């Protein structure tokens, strides 16, 4: 990834994270505000419920007091007072009194707690009123919550107890009104709130026990089944404390409702959990607000990101352009273009860096030119030395032969012809020798350019191996073994087969010369990532470090009768193929030449 892209990515991520952080902050603030509002509304509704509860309780207590003070009840109390009274004739009294005083429940109970008459369960006469352990204690107290057992079910109600005394034997009037949909409907709720009541009877949750005043409305019914309340109800029943839960009615989050469950308890020592008030707040407003915020954030964020990308792209380009120029110049220099330089703009750190780069390349170029010049001089000197050395050997016999001819002419004319004939042969032979020397130098200067064609490297190596196979066990010399290790995965490469054959032959000849006492010759090919690699190794005398450094220099040789052009020609051929040759050697252990030829040589 380029520096500019990295910079752009950093800028963009910074903007995105900033926008996300702001969005999260806004949403968190919104949620807190909504929860606070919801909490306040729930508290208001609970207070309203309590007020309505108390108002209805007072109403029930007033009606029950009125019944207790009525003539029929007083007459009944008098009739039953202290005598083995026949209460049968009063069996229907509770029903008529409940009707006249508009109470849903009314029990007339004697001082032993036995039901004399019951409006809601007329058949219960003679049975004990088991819901209260201390009726006298409840007399004159305010209304309380009670779950009234009916024939096949039970009902929640607000009850009050009043006693009518005629003498020492009181008759208790226990009256109540049902806490039902009508009661819940009387609560003033905002449109997005609702109140439900769960009658807590039985050990298990039952949907039938949920009183929902809007059960027939759109907010309830099949789309909002009552059994969804079960986890919340069960939790309140289990932990016996107020709880809050969000109920999801559909896949649409806007349909969610947050319910606050408040346990309602009865009277008595245990204060049993009789009902659970459920106050629901629709989350539609909150969800819609959250959606609007999200949309706004997405819109602003998107626009901001686009703007940020553009701005950061411009800024990154401005920042990275000199760096890119520097990088390009460095690449040019690495590619051999020592004249590459960077335009210097401004005076900042990047400009200083560019200036330093330009200075550095200038100095490197100068040093290179000096080095080349030095090497050229050294090469000429070496060439002159070699030429002098090569030419000195034939010149000396020539000089001796000519001097011998002159001496013979002057001192022994009779033998001149004989000497002339022999000297002529010697002169011709040495001249021929000189021509040979000059021809080799000429050949080196006229190395042909390689004709690249797809060449199977393994076949060329195998051909070289076969060529020298007969010369390895030479008479008068210890035998040389040859090991051929070919990489079958090696595909053909673009190369000049003839030149490559010459290169390998030259290296094999050198290896054989390096093993006068025999040894092992290894020809190996292998497949590198981007190169075809050929190795020619021997177990001969090896080379010193200095020899390794100069071995490819033209006219340098470590042999007594070498021209010093063989490995120079090898390096030249490998170089013309776009490849590289190196030598690994250790004195006494042998030498290995490694040729790396590009697989795609010449394709570019």
């Amino acid at each position, binding site marked *: 990834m380029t520096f500019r892209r990295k910079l752009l990515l950093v800028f963009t991520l910074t903007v995105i994270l900033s926008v996300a952080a702001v969005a999260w902050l806004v949403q968190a603030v919104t949620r807190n505000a909504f929860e606070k509002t919801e909490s306040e509304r729930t508290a208001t509704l609970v207070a309203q419920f309590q007020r309505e509860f108390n108002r209805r309780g007072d109403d029930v207590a007033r009606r029950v007091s009125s019944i207790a003070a009525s003539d029929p009840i007083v007459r009944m109390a008098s009739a039953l007072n202290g005598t083995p009274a026949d209460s049968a004739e009063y069996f229907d009294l509770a029903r008529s009194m409940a009707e006249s005083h508009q109470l849903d429940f009314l029990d007339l109970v004697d001082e032993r707690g036995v039901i004399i008459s019951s409006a809601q369960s007329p*058949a219960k006469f003679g049975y004990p009123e088991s819901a209260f352990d201390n009726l006298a204690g409840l007399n004159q107290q305010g209304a309380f919550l009670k779950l009234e057992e009916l024939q*096949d079910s039970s009902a929640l109600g607000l009850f009050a107890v009043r006693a009518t005394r005629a003498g020492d034997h009181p008759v208790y009037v226990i009256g109540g009104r049902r806490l039902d949909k009508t009661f819940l409907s009387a609560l003033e709720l905002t449109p997005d709130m609702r109140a439900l009541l769960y009658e807590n009877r039985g050990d298990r949750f039952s949907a039938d026990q949920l009183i929902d005043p809007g059960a027939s409305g759109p907010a309830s019914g099949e789309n909002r089944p009552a059994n969804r309340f079960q986890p919340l109800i069960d939790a309140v029943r289990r932990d016996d404390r107020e709880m809050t839960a969000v109920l999801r009615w559909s896949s649409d989050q806007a349909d969610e409702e947050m319910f606050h469950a408040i346990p309602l308890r009865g009277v008595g020592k245990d204060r049993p959990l009789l009902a659970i008030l459920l106050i629901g707040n629709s989350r539609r407003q909150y969800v819609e607000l959250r959606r609007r915020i999200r949309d706004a954030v997405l819109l602003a964020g998107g626009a901001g990101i686009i703007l940020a990308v553009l701005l950061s792209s411009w800024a990154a380009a401005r920042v990275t352009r000199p760096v890119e120029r520097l990088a390009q110049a460095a690449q040019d220099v690495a590619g051999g273009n020592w004249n590459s330089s960077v335009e210097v703009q401004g005076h900042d750190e990047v400009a200083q860096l560019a200036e330093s780069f330009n200075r550095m390349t200038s100095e490197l170029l100068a040093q290179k030119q000096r080095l080349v010049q030095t090497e050229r001089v050294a090469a000429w000197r070496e060439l002159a030395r070699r030429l002098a050395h090569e030419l000195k050997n034939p010149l000396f016999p020539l000089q001796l032969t000519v001097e011998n001819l002159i001496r013979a002419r002057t001192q022994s004319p009779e033998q001149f012809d004989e000497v002339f004939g022999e000297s002529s042969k010697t002169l011709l032979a040495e001249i021929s020798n000189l021509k040979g020397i000059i021809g080799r130098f000429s050949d080196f200067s006229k190395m042909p350019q390689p004709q690249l064609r797809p060449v199977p490297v393994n076949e060329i190596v195998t051909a070289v191996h076969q060529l020298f196979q007969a010369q390895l066990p030479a008479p008068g010399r210890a035998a040389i073994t040859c090991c051929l290790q070919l990489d079958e995965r090696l595909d053909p490469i673009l190369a000049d087969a003839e030149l490559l054959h010459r290169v390998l032959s030259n290296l094999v000849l050198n290896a054989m010369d390096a093993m006068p006492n025999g040894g092992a010759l290894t020809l190996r090919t292998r497949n590198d990532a981007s190169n075809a690699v050929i190795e020619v190794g021997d177990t001969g005398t090896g080379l010193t470090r200095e020899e390794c450094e100069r071995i490819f220099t033209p006219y340098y040789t470590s042999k007594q009768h070498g021209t010093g052009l063989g490995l120079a020609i090898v390096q030249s051929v490998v170089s013309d193929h776009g490849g590289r040759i190196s030598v690994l050697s250790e004195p006494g252990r042998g030498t290995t030449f490694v040729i790396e030829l590009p697989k795609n040589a010449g394709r570019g």
Partner: protein
Amino acid sequence: MKRFGWQWLAASSLLIGALAVSAETRPQFGGTLHVAMHAAPSTLDPADRTVPDSFGRRGLTSLIFDTLVNVDDSGRVKPALAESWQPAGGAQHWQFRLRHGVQFQDGTPLTAEVAASSLRFANPSWSVRAEGDAVVIDRDTSAQDVSESDLLAELALKRNAIVKRNADGSLSGTGPFRVTEWERGSRLTLVANENCWQGRPFLDSIEIEFGKSFRDQMTALQMGKADFVEIAPDQIHRVSQDSHRIVTSPPMELLALVFVRDASSPEEKSVREALGWSVDRGSIRDVLLQAAGLPTGSILPTWISGYGFVFPSTADLAKARQLRGQAHSVPNWKLGYDNGDSLDRLLAERIALNARDAGLSVQPIVSSASDVRLVRIPLTSFDPWIALQELESEVGLSGPVAAPKAESVENLYAAEQSLLATRRVIPLFHLPVSYTSAVGLKGWTLQPDGAWDLSNAWLETAKP
């Protein structure tokens, strides 16, 4: 046994009669009587046994139809459409000579053929034929000994009334009133039969409304919309404190729990027995029935059988719990009751409460799909055997009690005990049947079978 019953009936009737006569003045012709009744019969045919028997239905039958013989308050058989009867060709053949000059309400004369056809329709197993102006009944005596009193008692049953069934499906009788308008199960209008063999009735017409609850009937009476109504047992005490005339029969209606199917195992029988022991009949009588009726553990009332007290009727919760404890599983019974009767609802709820005390599960419902029903079965006859057989038939038991050749009390007791041992029926109470009327209605009486008799009733101030 029977003497005891007749004496009770006779004494109460005499008392009622004495009270009534002293208050009545000279009968007047004319007027329309308005009657409300609880039953809502879907047919007027007395022989149709698909319709439950009721005192109201019997009263209706007696207004439109006549039987060959009647039974008076003393239990004696009196001639009705049959002037006389005698054995014909042996004790198994009885010849009933019809009264001359009797006409059906459609003007056709009463003939032996019509009477024989009517009796055959009502009793398919009987061999009945007409011989001249007499009806001859041949009884099959191979299985049981049929006495004269048995045959006459059966002929006096309302279901054996003589009915002329016309081709168009209409019915015609010889009774004091004829049908002019009939809205099945809802309303019936009768007008006086001018040619009645017993003489024209005093009333011009009677309008009867069916299916009225006891409370609605009392309301209609108090508002002057009805002249004659039935009284629920629990209302007898309260109504008696008003100025209305009340006539109450001996306890001749059995209030019982009847299971719709036989017990499938001895264990189920035990659980049913536990239910019988759990019901606190005493409290129910004192409170719900307001002291009306008699708690019972027997099917036949003591005043008919003489031994009813032998069957325990007091609650024994310990025994009920013991029986229930012996059962491995206890069914959840659905107790069906008559939705139109508030007393029945209370009774069912109280029985459910009592059952719960014994660890039994009983759920009162108004649906007909019940396991056990709270039913009222009017006793058909003073003859205990006939009453027992009719009750068996009414309950739907598969093996009716056969009258043995020796009609001894021991055999009757054994038959009743055998019937109770099936645990299909749990007797609870024997209830009286009571009626009351507006002050201006005179001359009405109670028939021995508990039905009202309005054939001689008249309105003190005739209504237009």
